[in-house]
């Protein structure tokens, strides 16, 4: 057995930084796969990567953690995975405090970080066998588990190749397999599909669903709204180190309480068009998008006739007018004031004009 009984890096309560509690009450962690309270991380130079973060993830949930680059997603994951100690606050994973019993947490979690953690010199099989060994699964059991996982992620044929020869998708799948050797209670996936082609992304999604179906709680960070929408039971949006929205994707979208009518400007004057439409009944706000206006309005379908009438009365000719239910992108826009990079707008800054 290789797992350690005590971790030499786990600080005693007296060694904890001021402001950081050692452990959470049993009530706070009850029924939760992950619970964080007042979690903070400040780096050298006073950079506050995560600020006063409260979070709970129920057992068996797929929880999405959504945010732009630099929002604090990876820092939060690293704290929850025991790779980074919080500056203040507390967190537990699988009911175990991440600071007081870091080794205990490590035995219960699987981690696939944003940077694919593979040793390029080893073959896929060797890497998984080593990973099994590090989790105390040795001998015949280790070999069987390795073959199971290779089969599971479709890498049996490539098992004897060094991982440096693998494609991006194969590396991701192997990394995922290496996080699963000990059947973890909680699986952390930090942007598992970033940089993958659509086919590889779908494969990872299927894997995530299957792993979750087997009972694992999944904490998934992503920049892709569609990914969060497809996979997550609940999600939180983090921006500037703070959670700015949290809930089930459908709830969050429903909370928007309006439809989105997109008016393609097609050469029409931006300001004049906005001025013509700003008095529409039920209009919550107008957001300027590249060569279009997004109108957040109650009952979008019935508003179209009124929109056309207003534009006609001002002799403004526009392109297509379309109605859509609010998307997570809209939820993100409302919560953060900008669109999520990589969500389909290619990261273009959107100026929001409140009515």
């Amino acid at each position: 057995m290789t797992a350690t009984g005590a971790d030499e890096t786990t600080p005693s309560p007296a060694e904890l930084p001021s402001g950081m509690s050692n452990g959470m009450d049993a009530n706070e962690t009850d029924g939760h796969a992950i619970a964080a309270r007042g979690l903070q991380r400040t780096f050298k130079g006073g950079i506050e990567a995560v600020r006063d973060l409260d979070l709970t993830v129920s057992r068996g949930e797929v929880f999405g953690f959504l945010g732009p680059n630099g929002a604090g997603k990876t820092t939060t994951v690293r704290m929850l995975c025991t790779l980074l100690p919080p500056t203040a606050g507390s967190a537990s994973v699988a009911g175990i405090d991440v600071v007081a019993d870091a080794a205990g947490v490590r035995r219960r979690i699987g981690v696939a970080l944003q940077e694919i953690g593979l040793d390029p010199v080893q073959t896929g099989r060797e890497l998984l066998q080593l990973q099994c060994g590090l989790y105390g699964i040795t001998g015949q059991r280790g070999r069987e588990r390795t073959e199971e996982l290779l089969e599971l992620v479709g890498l049996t044929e490539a098992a004897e190749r060094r991982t440096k020869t693998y494609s991006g998708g194969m590396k991701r799948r192997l990394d995922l397999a290496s996080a699963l050797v000990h059947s973890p209670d909680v699986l952390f996936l930090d942007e598992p599909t970033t940089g993958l082609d659509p086919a590889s992304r779908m494969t990872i999604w299927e894997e995530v669903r299957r792993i979750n179906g087997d009972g694992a709680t999944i904490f998934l960070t992503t920049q892709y709204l569609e990914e969060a929408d497809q996979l997550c039971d609940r999600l939180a949006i983090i921006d500037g180190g703070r959670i700015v929205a949290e809930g089930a994707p459908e709830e969050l979208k429903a909370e928007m309480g309006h439809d989105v009518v997109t008016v393609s400007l097609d050469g029409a004057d931006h300001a004049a068009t906005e001025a013509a439409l700003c008095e529409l009944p039920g209009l919550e706000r107008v957001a300027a998008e590249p060569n279009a206006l997004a109108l957040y309005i109650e009952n979008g379908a019935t508003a179209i006739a009124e929109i056309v009438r207003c534009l006609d009365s001002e002799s403004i000719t526009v392109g297509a007018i379309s109605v859509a239910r609010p998307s997570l992108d809209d939820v993100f826009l409302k919560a953060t004031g900008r669109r999520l990079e990589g969500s389909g707008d290619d990261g273009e800054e959107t100026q929001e004009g409140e009515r």
Partner: protein
Amino acid sequence: MTEVLLLGRRAVREIARYPEATIPTLFIPLFFLVVNIGQVSKTFPSSTPFLKGEGYAAFQLPVSLMFAVATATTGLAFVTEIDLGYFDKLLVAPVRRSSIIFGRLAADLVRGIGASTAVLLVGLAFGVSIRSGVGGAIVIVLLAALFGVAYAGFGVLVALRTRNVQATQSSFLLFFPLLFLTPNFVPFERLSPAMETLARINPVSYVIVGLRSLVIDGWKLGELGVCFAVIAGLGVILTGLSLRVIATYDR
């Protein structure tokens, strides 16, 4: 212990699969051995008193052995793992952080044994005979390899502190003054007073003297004891510091 063996086996496999990382580290010591012998052997024929009847190659052999085993390879391996993200994978596994270092150092021992054996064989080809016999040759190889393990701690220390390839590579440069401020060309008493003082306070001198005694004198337990004590002391200090750094890594 199992985790150290697993990680050590992986590191040895890496050495075997990347011979191009090890072979250049052998080139410099062998080059110095050949050049020094070629340049100085006529100045110091075997009749020179401090050579005690041996050729100058015998006097130089320990210096080349030290050169062969003192590398920044392990430190560089850590920096690479950090860059690739594999280091995080190891940190998040339920293993002692110290095992990650000991696994690498175990591989250093294997590499050191291989490298010092190769240099010793070249020395024998140059006509060096080991006064302490086969047993002495084995002890020479082991002590040299252990010195390599001890010195590797310095590269690891720099690697974990800086996480930078250039800085880690540069850490090897420190070995040059450590190796040349020693009785590497002539014994202590033939050095200038200032050099002798520096050489006498340089711990590496005593490792060279100890190894040299096995080659030229036979079994001199006093010098061997000091040699072993210096290697052990260096190992404890440098590995201890590395363990401290990895224990507080990102903390």
